[in-house]
């Protein structure tokens, strides 16, 4: 009987001891409950920050999606030779609801929004013991959410708006009116201004000045000019930012922490941290390596030939404007000793490594002038699309055109290395001056004095002068003046599509200036003005991805025209 008792007790023990036996202890993978810890919520916030670098970087659709949607199909940039994204410039049927670039960007922002929503939902409780930190974290997340929606409404118009963390499958989606989304954006930015510190903990994080900058931009888009002027002037007067005296210096690859940059999306050269990278260093390049004596190298970059400046943009710059050379790379130097040796062996004149080998002068040169230079005389054998090595503007084509000085990145380990580490500058002080100028010019009771003053601050730096009298005369600021100035100041910075769309100028300006005409000798004046011909009003909004429409259980209307 004793044994029997022991066994019965054993049996009973097994039955009762197992209250929490099936509790699941998570070890290894991180799950959403890590956001309930103070260090874990930072992981979520960091992930929300990484949304923009992902859209603008190599982790999404070959590094081209974000750049294509903000650069192509405008009055200042058109497509280069290569890449499927050419069609964004041409406004063809290719821009359709199943377009993978558009879908990728759409998806990435909504992932980012959900991440931000999750952080916003959890910050107050997770960081309850440190209310200031809680507000700071929430402020950053709200800032990001506001910016992501701002990006989306300018591309897609009314979009799905949600400010809550997704915790259960959601199959319905809405199209909230643009005005209402703007209201939410303003509320979020106001919270950020209220709660963010004046100085961010580290470069790449946002402070309250960044929030004010975005707010000024948003208010401008909302046409609330008075408030926009007020906020922009606050940033100019009281913010810790200064214009970098020399426009070109600002774009030095080692000067990413300069005093003008207000907020930049972060990329880094370290491949272990950033496998995607910013592809801009390739996208804006042209085929410099088709010139004689020039080999493709790390210094000059890997030319993907995606984006080409329009004739309109190139001609906007005055000769005194330092921004032309600050923005465009137009000279390449000989770096191919073998070809030079061959050349010399043929009994030709001496050329040395480091001599100018390919030059795209701003103004056309006569053939007589060009013949004064060895390279100009020699011309090119076998490379039929490049007739000479001094190429006049009327000879530019989809392979040869002024490239970039803003994104060139000579410090990559190898010429084929795609992962660029240059930060994508989202806002810098010069733009705030232009916002202030525009808002003052367009507000109900315009203040042209202020408008001109702010505009001229930017121009003075551009013309490298301290005297307004040195500048070409602009008597009053209007929308076209602003758009021209923004074109010159902010070229290649992923702004133009937004600039045109928010000001209702996309169709008008693409029809006037979009695309290009080649009249290279030997080519029968090839035109690529397809974009100018094809563009319609509906193109000011991108198509809603078909997957969004298919997967929504309620009806999710497509943008008209698609």
């Amino acid at each position: 009987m004793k044994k029997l008792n022991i066994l019965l007790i054993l049996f009973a023990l097994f039955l009762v001891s197992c209250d929490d036996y099936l509790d699941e202890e998570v070890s290894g993978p991180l799950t959403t409950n890590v956001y309930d810890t103070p260090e874990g919520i930072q992981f979520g916030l960091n992930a929300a920050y990484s949304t923009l670098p992902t859209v603008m970087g190599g982790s999404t659709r070959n590094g081209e999606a974000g750049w294509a949607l903000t650069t192509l199909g405008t009055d200042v940039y058109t497509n280069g030779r290569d890449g499927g994204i050419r069609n964004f410039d041409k406004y063809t049927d290719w821009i359709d609801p199943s377009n993978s670039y558009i879908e990728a960007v759409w998806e990435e922002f909504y992932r980012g929004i959900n991440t931000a929503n999750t952080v916003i939902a959890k910050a107050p409780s997770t960081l309850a013991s440190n209310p200031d930190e809680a507000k700071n974290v929430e402020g950053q997340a709200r800032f990001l959410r506001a910016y992501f929606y701002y990006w989306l409404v300018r591309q897609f118009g009314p979009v799905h708006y949600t400010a809550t963390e997704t915790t259960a499958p959601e199959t319905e989606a809405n199209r909230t009116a643009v005005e209402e989304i703007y209201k939410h954006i303003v509320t979020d930015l106001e919270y950020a201004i209220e709660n963010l510190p004046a100085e961010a903990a580290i470069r790449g994080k946002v402070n309250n000045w960044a929030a004010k900058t975005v707010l000024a931009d948003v208010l401008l888009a909302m046409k609330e000019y008075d408030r926009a002027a007020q906020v922009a002037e606050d940033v100019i007067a009281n913010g810790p930012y200064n214009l970098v005296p020399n426009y070109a210096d600002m774009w030095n690859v080692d000067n990413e922490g300069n005093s003008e940059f207000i907020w930049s999306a972060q990329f880094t050269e370290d491949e272990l941290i950033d496998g995607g990278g910013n592809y801009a260093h390739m996208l804006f390049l042209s085929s410099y390596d088709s010139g004689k004596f020039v080999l493709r190298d790390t210094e000059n970059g890997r030319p993907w030939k995606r984006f080409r400046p329009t004739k309109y943009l190139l001609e906007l710059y005055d000769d005194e404007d330092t921004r032309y050379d600050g923005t465009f790379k137009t000279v390449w130097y000989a770096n191919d000793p073998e070809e030079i040796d061959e050349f010399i062996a043929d009994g030709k004149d001496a050329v040395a490594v480091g001599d100018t080998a390919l030059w795209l002068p701003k103004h056309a040169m006569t053939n007589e002038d060009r013949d004064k230079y060895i390279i100009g005389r020699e011309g090119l054998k076998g490379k039929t699309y490049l007739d000479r090595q001094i190429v006049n503007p009327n000879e530019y084509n989809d392979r040869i055109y002024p490239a970039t000085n803003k994104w060139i990145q000579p410090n990559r380990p190898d010429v084929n290395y795609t992962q660029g580490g240059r930060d994508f500058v989202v806002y810098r002080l010069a733009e705030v001056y232009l916002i202030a100028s525009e808002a003052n010019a367009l507000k109900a009771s315009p203040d042209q004095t202020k408008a001109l003053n702010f505009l001229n601050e930017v121009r003075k730096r551009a013309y490298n002068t301290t005297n307004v009298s040195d500048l070409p005369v602009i008597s009053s600021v209007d929308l076209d003046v602003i758009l021209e100035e923004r074109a010159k100041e902010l070229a290649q910075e992923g702004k133009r599509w937004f600039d045109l769309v928010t000001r209702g100028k996309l169709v008008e300006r693409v029809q006037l200036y979009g695309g290009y005409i080649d009249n290279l000798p030997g080519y029968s004046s090839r035109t690529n003005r397809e974009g100018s011909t094809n563009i319609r009003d509906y193109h000011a909004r991108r198509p809603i991805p078909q997957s969004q429409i298919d997967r929504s259980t309620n009806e999710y209307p497509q943008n008209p025209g698609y």
Partner: protein
Amino acid sequence: MKKIFLTMICMCMVLLNYAQSKEVTGIVTDQATGETIPGVNVVVKGTTNGTVTNIDGKYSINVSKTNATLLFSFVGYAPQEFVYNGQGKLDVVLVTDALTVDEVIVVGYGSQKKSDVTGAVSSVKGSFINETKEANVMAALAGKVAGVDVSLKSGQPGSSPEILIRGRSSLSYSNAPLVVVDGIPTSGGLEDINSEDIKSMEILKDASSAAIYGARGANGVIIITTKRGKKGKPTFTYDAYFGISSPTNKAKVQSADEYVGHLLEKERKNREESDSDRANWLTPGSVSLNDIDVQDVLTEQQYDAYTSGVDTDFQDEIFRNQSFQQNHRFGVTGGGDVTRYAVSMNYLKQEGTMKTTDYERYTLRTNFDIDVTDRLKISLSQQVGYSESNLLDDTGIVYSMYTGSPLARAYNEDGTPTLDPLKDGNFRNPINDIYGNQHENLRKTFRYFGNISATYKFTDDLKYILNVGPEFKSSQTGQFNNANTTKRANFGTSLARKENEFETSYTVENILQFNKTFNEIHKLDATLLFSVQESNYEETVAEGQGIPSDSQKYNRLQDSKTENRVIESTNTRTRWESYMARFNYTLNDKYLFTFTGRYDGSSKLSEGNKYEFFPSGSVAWKIGNEDFLANVEALDNLKLRLGYGTVGRNPIDPYSTYGELKAVEGSFDNQEAVSYRPDELPNSELSWEVTTTYNLAVDFALWQNRLNGSIDVYKGKTTDLLLDRLIPITSGYKQVLENVGETENRGIEITLGGDVIRSKDWRWSLDLNFSHNKNEIKKLSGGGDDVGNKWFVGRPLQVAYDWKYDGVWRLNQLAEAEKYLARPGDARYVDQNGDETLNDDDDRVILGQLDPKWIGGLTSRLSYKNLDFTVVASTRQGHVVKHDLRIQPGNTRRVGLSGDYWTPENDGAEFPRYTRNTDAYKTVDASSVRIRNITLGYNFTNEMAHKIGVQKIRMYANVQNPWLFSSFDFDGFDPDTAGAADSKIPTLRTVIVGLNVTF
């Protein structure tokens, strides 16, 4: 009790009859084991005169007259009759009966007489598993059991086949059955079990029988019971066999001449179709082959090889013409009053078809039973196994081996394999994968599992059993590919990887069993179970590229290049908690009822959803025992069974209900920012996939069991299938795992067995089974078809979906072919909607199902005196396979087809010309009939055995896979592996010779 009682009666009769008759004596032995059998009934037919054999199997009986017939019978053996001709001595060998109705079989948490079983349970004796000498126990099931489909999916030695019981019901998760060894559910993978250690295998096929395993029984259950010791002197056995395997047929690949002919033909087509405007293409045949010079179609390198007579068939260099295998097992069983034991050691080595591949296995099995007291019994069932497998990463090697140009020189003059024999950078010589130490993929596995069990009998009716089943499994895989191997051809660096897996699990079961017969008509058998189970899985992976020296292999990854390193580690834990009750009630030995309820809990599910109840019930009516059939002498058994039950499947990954985060890249000011964003939507509603089945069956046995069998029809429905549902990304997620889908399985199984001949010297038995399964998708997430996954509502779970091949465009069909942008000689596909274009949406159709519609098996066992001859055949019918090597790319050689391809001069050819290639063309009928095994054995007579000092000796020869008949000509490939992702190997034929010695 009954037996002893009968024995006593018989003995009394013997005494009564003693005076008037002549004495006959003899020994009764078991044909399979050679052991003597005590307790065998010996009766003079037509009289009440009888006796039983004593403990040594000896009997003596007095027979009153000559020409009397003696009848020998014993439970579990086929009865035998002998005519008494006046001889004084009559030794008898009894043969175990495969399907004896009163056989006891294991049904999970206990055993039952087969005649009392109410569910669909099949039982296979260990000797039948062992007779084919398959290295893998599961492979031995092929063709043996209705409803169990066994198909080999890999050609690597030591790999396990895929097993499907009654078809497939889950779309996204495993359909592999649960395997229970000596009472404890194992982690699967039975590569390390030696078939000679197995006493029996039982397959629980329907929900009413599998329901005792509740949430793990949805794919059916295979129960393996190993041999245990019996009281008696120690019996030593030594079993050994040696085998040689060779490919039955190499794949037919083009010879150098054929290859050049094919390139010429390609060049001709190119010339005819060179104009950029299709309208200007020349009619096929208008360019003469005479106008094309061999040098035009071959690179300098290949031309040089061609003129010097190079004609490489890489199969010759990579396949072993003969791969050897050997198996040794040494065992001892026996026991005394207190302890019984069965201990065996096993060594198996098997070489693979591809050079360098092999599998080596060491197993120690120790089973002990200890009667501690009259009431307490302790049993240990343990196995320790260690194995080493040398594998090949065969994706690259297989493709290059079959399609590589015959003009590629295999070796350099110094005997080393060439690297880039075509000097074009496109073709890496596959011999590099098996040459020297350039490649290694060695997997070592150590595994211990067992059941430590204690049984305490409170009374004769009530007992308590405690089972503790620990399992430890540790495996390490080291992979090394140097820069020369096919895998690294595009990288130029070596790749080294070390992977460690560590699995532990334990099961603790508390079982109470009550067993009693009331008033001789009510029999109750009740089982209560409480069990917990935990399994842990840990994995560590380290990988590096560019190891400085090949000699370091994967043992110094810290020397690899920093930027390409991969480090991964994972750890998961799953727990189960279960309560189960089963009641078997029998009334009058005619009406049988079984009710089972199992309440299962799983740690993987969220709070509130962890537990699920799985009920089942079944009834059986032994019509044969009814009075109105009592006079039908031919009828031994007739039973109707009806079962219903639900079982579950819970395949989700641990932590699925929480919502996993994904690491994303992030940085601030060039410093890393650890970033994790939500990636999986937490779904707290996740639950089991539930399968509900009905089973209706009849079991019968006729003419003293000379014909027996059963017919089962079943219908099963699986609901709440776990599928990813696509949701709009505006929620932040693209999909969510939900219990949404539904599938259905219907089928019929017929098993027939019996003795065609039963006589003193001759015995011939046949076992036949046939099963048909039809599975169908009933519902998917989103309602409609899921074309991307090839899931179609109303169609089988796995289908081939593509354009339908319709022969070759002929010369006179030029105009029609052009509508489809095809040319005479191209493959022709059916334009389903007649719109004169072939598009993906409208013209692709379901070409067939990937699982067979029906399977069957036939086993014939013929014996004459001491000779026996066994043939096992199986068939799989009505399915298709995507024969991936049925390709005809431009610059590689043509494989897997006969030479009859289209040229303008051969317009009637069966196969298209070489250039046009689509997947659709690869889908072919995979139906096949396979003679799996033929065995010829000889059991030495006792006298002969005794002469050489042993009890028993058996020698045998065995051929595996002697013949394969398939409806499509696979040209040497095995239809089972032809669709496998990488291991496409020819059918292997193995010849084995072996012996069993008992002493």
